[in-house]
């Protein structure tokens, strides 16, 4: 059951001119968040911006055994993300959550291959923790425009995640899209049982779902659609899901997702 928390900003870390990680005192949400779930965020009490915006829960913050809150990984693209970038310690951010259908972490001997594009890194910290708890081997294929936009590499490495990096400008790792190294590794990985998890821009999700299917691997993709309420009330965040051989129907990504099997989505 989701709760609405007036969460105090614990700290706001700017990672680049566009990206920040904001830590929020929302222990009620942190304690029950499953990997890949999201919160609906509102800053300020006014009518601009009016609607909440969806954000994946990035980290669940802990001190020892105590759950302190959550963090959000944000990239500046509009009014709410600008406000999140500018927020300072002590500000209040309204968080409604946790919401949505989470990732399903696989158990050993299966492996988890996570594929992140840009700010699509966000749901993979919680998934990494869930995989660690199961001792499932994890790889992160992480792509960005340039090396300066690859974040939290130490965080993932220190948790035993194998990193495969790519950048569109070639400054770090493979030169090009993240699906290139993904396909190379899928081709080479004969015999291993792998589930592919992806979050990022929709064209990337489509490419990942296709390449996973090509090598016979199941995929779980986390989509981001324009969302009004996060609870299934408004029917705005729909995505076409396969229905029979030819048809599709629109499923609300807030309650039917945001995680879908890659092969159930009808890509535009």
């Amino acid at each position, binding site marked *: 059951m989701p709760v*609405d928390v007036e969460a105090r900003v614990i700290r706001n870390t700017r990672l680049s001119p566009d990206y920040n990680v904001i830590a929020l005192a929302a222990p009620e949400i942190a304690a029950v968040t499953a990997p890949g779930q999201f919160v609906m965020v509102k800053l300020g009490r006014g009518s601009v911006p*009016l609607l909440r915006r969806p954000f994946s829960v990035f980290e669940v913050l802990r001190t020892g055994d105590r759950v302190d809150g959550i963090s959000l990984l944000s990239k500046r693209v509009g009014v709410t993300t600008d406000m999140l970038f500018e927020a300072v310690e002590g500000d209040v951010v309204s968080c409604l959550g946790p919401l949505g259908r989470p990732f399903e972490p696989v158990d050993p001997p299966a492996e988890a291959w996570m594929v992140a594009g840009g700010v699509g890194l966000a749901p993979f910290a919680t998934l990494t923790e869930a995989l660690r708890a199961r001792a499932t081997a994890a790889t992160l294929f992480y792509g960005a425009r340039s090396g300066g936009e690859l974040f939290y590499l130490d965080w993932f490495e220190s948790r035993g995640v194998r990193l495969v990096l790519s950048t569109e400008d070639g400054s770090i790792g493979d030169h090009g899209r993240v699906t290139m190294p993904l396909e190379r590794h899928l081709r080479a990985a004969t015999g291993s049982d792998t589930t592919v998890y992806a979050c990022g821009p929709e064209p990337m999700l489509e490419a990942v779902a296709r390449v996973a299917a090509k090598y016979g691997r199941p995929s779980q993709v986390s989509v981001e659609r*324009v969302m009004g309420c996060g609870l299934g*009330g*408004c*029917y*705005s965040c729909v995505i076409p899901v396969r229905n029979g051989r030819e048809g599709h129907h629109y499923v609300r990504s807030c309650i039917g997702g945001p995680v879908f099997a890659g092969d159930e989505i009808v890509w535009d």
Partner: protein
Amino acid sequence: MSEPDLSVRLGSLRLANPLIAASGCFGYGVEYADVVDLSLLGGVAVKGLFLKERQGHPPERIVETPAGMLNAIGLQGIGVHRFIKEKLPELRDRRATVIVNICGSTLDEYVELARILSDAEGVAALELNISCPNIKEGGITFGCSLNGTFEVVSAVKKVTRLPVIPKLTPNVTDVASFARASEEAGADAVSLVNTFLAMAIDIETRRPVLSNIVGGLSGPAIRPIAVRMVYECRRAVKIPVIGMGGIASARDAIEFLIAGATAVQVGTANFVDPFIWTKLLDGIREYLERHGIAHVSALTGTIDTTSREKQWISS
């Protein structure tokens, strides 16, 4: 003073309080059962239902605009039969007062829907959607013609004992005349306003933001226009008026009541804060106590226009 009485009457229908979840903004109600005690609401107007399932428009379906939002969902829905089978039992269990919003492409479809729902257990009233701005074939053709409004209301009234509430569009020159046509046809109440036809363009691509090109504007941006329209309708008819349009606080709800609404609907604000209902109820109760008003219905239409009445306001 004892607790103020919040109950209101819409014809033969008694609501525990004047707050109704607006159709199209609350799914089928069951989506919200985890966060809201549905029995605390005066009523739940469920998402508009056709006889058959409907897919709705492709995304994008909404876009935020200053103090509001445009939507063109296209009435995606499961159809009346699945609603009765899959949703209504839970709404009954949760003791919701269910107002079913119905839409048809033809007069016969409205009549058929009214017949089917009159036989279903747990339906408190019918709201006739003759005002959705987003679909061509739907009831808007009825809602934009005085004859059409009269015909659809009287045809539905003939086949049901349920209270019938046409939901009016603001996209006409004189909403009050449509309230009057509804009353003459036997409507038990009218609800207004549906959304204002509007559009938004992405200037970089020069493409409309919504796949449907146009959509309906809702939210605080429309509230003053909606208040004016409720005021006009209240002066035009004796049947109860249900007011809506950008209500986001108890203050806003009270403004509609004073303008002439017997009950109010809340839509967009529920997206922002699904826990808004108890805050609205507390705020209304506090206001009534502060003003020594024993019954919320005593507030309806109490606007004081002494020596301010302007000649141009239609009678």
